[in-house]
Every structure is written in structure tokens, then in C-alpha cells.
């Protein structure tokens, strides 16, 4: 168990270090997120629909696209110089490899989502500050389940043709349950409804996370096995 965590950390650290040194991916993802928000601003009629009505959809569609972008790069960098073969030869369990990749992806997506959340509050003048803690909880729970499946699938699609198109086609159906609950919870929070109204959604999100993190961890060896 300790080994598993240590090895996973080594993988995550390697990925994040690479990311931190080049910074290209994170900056591109942040710019992409900002642009999606801008597109939303011009894709609606502000006189017809009040911002608060559409705010949860804007936030979650933006996060879905940003998450998908982030996942496309997760295993792409392991393809260069057969880096994945090297990783598989190293005395690291497949489970650690998956959990490390998942952790690195989560940190990456969390960074992008943080930038996205502030830009969202700024661009659309949404009062997120009073409910920030609860909102971050909702975002974290929804992101974990989505990225857990996404990490598994991104390891698969890199070795298929049309990888960039296959990932969204396979992954978007898995985004629906977390999206439904996250949008409901976000809507309730932004409308200043009592917290008790979102606990149901939070429980469902947590259940989804537990099921899919476990399932993906156990299925991952079948994906990378030679």
C-alpha cells in the first residue's frame, strides 16, 4: 500500500515536473478555457436569458471541454521514444502507474479549472464567493469521476487511429451522470439555496467517483499490457 502510493507519486511527480518545465500545455489549456468562456458570452442573448439561469451550463460545458483537452495529452507524451515501454518495464505496478497518471491529470485539470472558475466569475459577474467552498467541493467530486474514466480511455485511444476524435466519442457518455448532478448542485448553490438541497447530488457524485476510480484502476492493466 505504501509502495503503491510512493510509486504513484513518482509517476505523478514526473508528469507534473515535465509540465511545469515546459508550461506549454497548461498555458494552452488556460487560454482555451478563457476562449470557450468568451464564445459562450457571444453565443447567448444577455437580454433574453438571465446569466444565473445559464451560468451552471456555461461553467460545466467549459470544464468538460477543458478536461477533454487535458486528457488528450496525458499519454501522448509517453508515445515519444517508446517512453511507455520504459515505464512498463520499470518495477512499478500497473495500478501505481494508473493512479500516478490520474493524480497528475487531476492536478493539471484542477489548475485549469481554478483559472476557469475565476474567469467565469469575472466575465459573467456570478456571485461565487459566498458559496466558494461548497462549489469547489462539487467541482472536485465531479472532476474526479470524469478524469478517472478519461485517464483509462486516453491510455487506450492513443494507440487507435483518430485518437483525438475517439476520446470524446467514448468519454462523453461517461460525463453525463457527473454533469447532471454537478449542474444541479451548481445551480442550487448559485441561487443561494440551502446546502441541504445539494447533499443528494454530492452523495451521487461521490458514489460515481468511488465506483469508477476502482473500476478503472482494476481495468488499467488490461489496457497497457503488451
Amino acid at each position, binding site marked *: 500500500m505504501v509502495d503503491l502510493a510512493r510509486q504513484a507519486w513518482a509517476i505523478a511527480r514526473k508528469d507534473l515536473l515535465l509540465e511545469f518545465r515546459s508550461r506549454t500545455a497548461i498555458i494552452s489549456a488556460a487560454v482555451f478555457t478563457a476562449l470557450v468562456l468568451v464564445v459562450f458570452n457571444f453565443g447567448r442573448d444577455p437580454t433574453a436569458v438571465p446569466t444565473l439561469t445559464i451560468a451552471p451550463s456555461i461553467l460545466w460545458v467549459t470544464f468538460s471541454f477543458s478536461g477533454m483537452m487535458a486528457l488528450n495529452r496525458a499519454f501522448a507524451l509517453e508515445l515519444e521514444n517508446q517512453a511507455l515501454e520504459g515505464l512498463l518495464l520499470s518495477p512499478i505496478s500497473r495500478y501505481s502507474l494508473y493512479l500516478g497518471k490520474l493524480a497528475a491529470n487531476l492536478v493539471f485539470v484542477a489548475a485549469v479549472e481554478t483559472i476557469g472558475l475565476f474567469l467565469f466569475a469575472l466575465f459573467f459577474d456570478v456571485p461565487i464567493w459566498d458559496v466558494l467552498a461548497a462549489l469547489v467541493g462539487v467541482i472536485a467530486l465531479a472532476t474526479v469521476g470524469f478524469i478517472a474514466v478519461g485517464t*483509462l480511455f486516453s491510455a487506450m485511444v492513443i*494507440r487507435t487511429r483518430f485518437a483525438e476524435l475517439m476520446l470524446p*466519442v*467514448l468519454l*462523453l457518455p461517461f460525463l453525463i451522470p457527473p454533469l*447532471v448532478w454537478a449542474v444541479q448542485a451548481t445551480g442550487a448553490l448559485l441561487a443561494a439555496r440551502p446546502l441541504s438541497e445539494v447533499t443528494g447530488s454530492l452523495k451521487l457524485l461521490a458514489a460515481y467517483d468511488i465506483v469508477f476510480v476502482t473500476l478503472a484502476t482494476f481495468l488499467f492493466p488490461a489496457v497497457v499490457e503488451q
Partner: protein
Amino acid sequence: MTLAQRGRWVTLIGLALLAVVYLRALAYTPVELHQGPAQKIFYIHVPAAWSAMLAMGLVGLASILYLLVKDPRYDRFAAASAEVGTAFSLVMLTTGPIWAKPIWGTWWTWDARLTLTLFLFFIFLGYLLLRGTVGDAGLRARYSAVLGICGLVLLPFIHLSVYLFRTLHPQPIVLKPSAPSLPGSMLATLLFSFAVFTVLYLGFVIQRYAIGDGRDVGDA
């Protein structure tokens, strides 16, 4: 008799029995009081949904078995079942709106069961697309098994995520805690149709499996 021939026979029997279902549904089953003749589509729609669900369940089961024992026959069966399931989902997704327009006044609504079956269709499509993009047979089998299992686990969550909204789809009338609430002749037609659609599912899958068998032999 080869497997493909056997599959063809099962399919022919299924198709002949399907004609009996049509005949029975149109001529020997009473017209429903409120919905009129539109209700007749129920004898095709519900059994098609059953076959699609059965197909997905067996794709998931065959996927688990494949990952456990790595026998390519399970993979071939899963591929056959997914293809047949796609066809049945399409029957279900086209007959549903045809019924819904006169009865609900809308072709489509984001009701729990409609959403669930739409995603069932999307998962089947994703599964078949994924199989098409992987060249290596072993890799293809493992990838599709992973997707098959994930898809099977996802469906209850999709159902749960939309079930909490109000639902427009008719509630279960046969498989429910109390006794089925429809006349005996309607129930008989429906149950008969369930059996026929199961036979059709089997016939199609056997044929498709036999084709996959021959294709793999040809590759070797």
C-alpha cells in the same frame, strides 16, 4: 450443418414467428381504449428494448470473461452481440418516437428511460467505432472488453441521474411488484413477442459470430 447455417435457420424461424406477432397484435389483440391503434407498436418497441438490453448485458458479461480467461471466442461473441444490440436499439429508438408523437405530442423528451436507451445506443456505437480503429486483434479485444465493462457499469448511473427528474414514460406494467395490469390477451401477445425477439437476437448473433469466426480464420 455449419454454425452460420444454424444461425440462418434460427433467424428464419424468428422472422416467421415475427409475422405471427404482427398478425396476433393487429387482428387478435384488443385495441387499447385511450391510445387507439398507436398502442400496437408496444408489441415491437418493448421487446426490441429487451433485446437491446440483453445484448448489452451479454457484451458486459463476455467482456469480463474475456479479460479473465483471454479466450478470443468471448471477444467474438461480444462483438456480435454489440452489433445486433445496435440494430435492436435502433428499432427501439425509431418505434418509440413514432408512438410518442401522437400520444405525448412530441417526438422526443429527456425522460429517464429515453435518455438511458439513447446512451445505450451511443455506447454500442462507441464500442463498434473503437473496434474499427484498432488494428491488432489482441489489443482490439482488450480495449473493447474494457469499454464493454465500463459501459455496463455506466448505464445504471445514467438511469439514476435522470430518474430523479419527473418521468413521462409509461410506468412498468408487466414487471412490477403487483400483478400485471393489462388484459390477458395483450399480455400473451407481449410475452410471445418477447420470446420471438429473443429468438431473433439469438439467430442474428449466431450468424454474426460465425462470420467473425470465418474472418479470423481467413486472417491467420
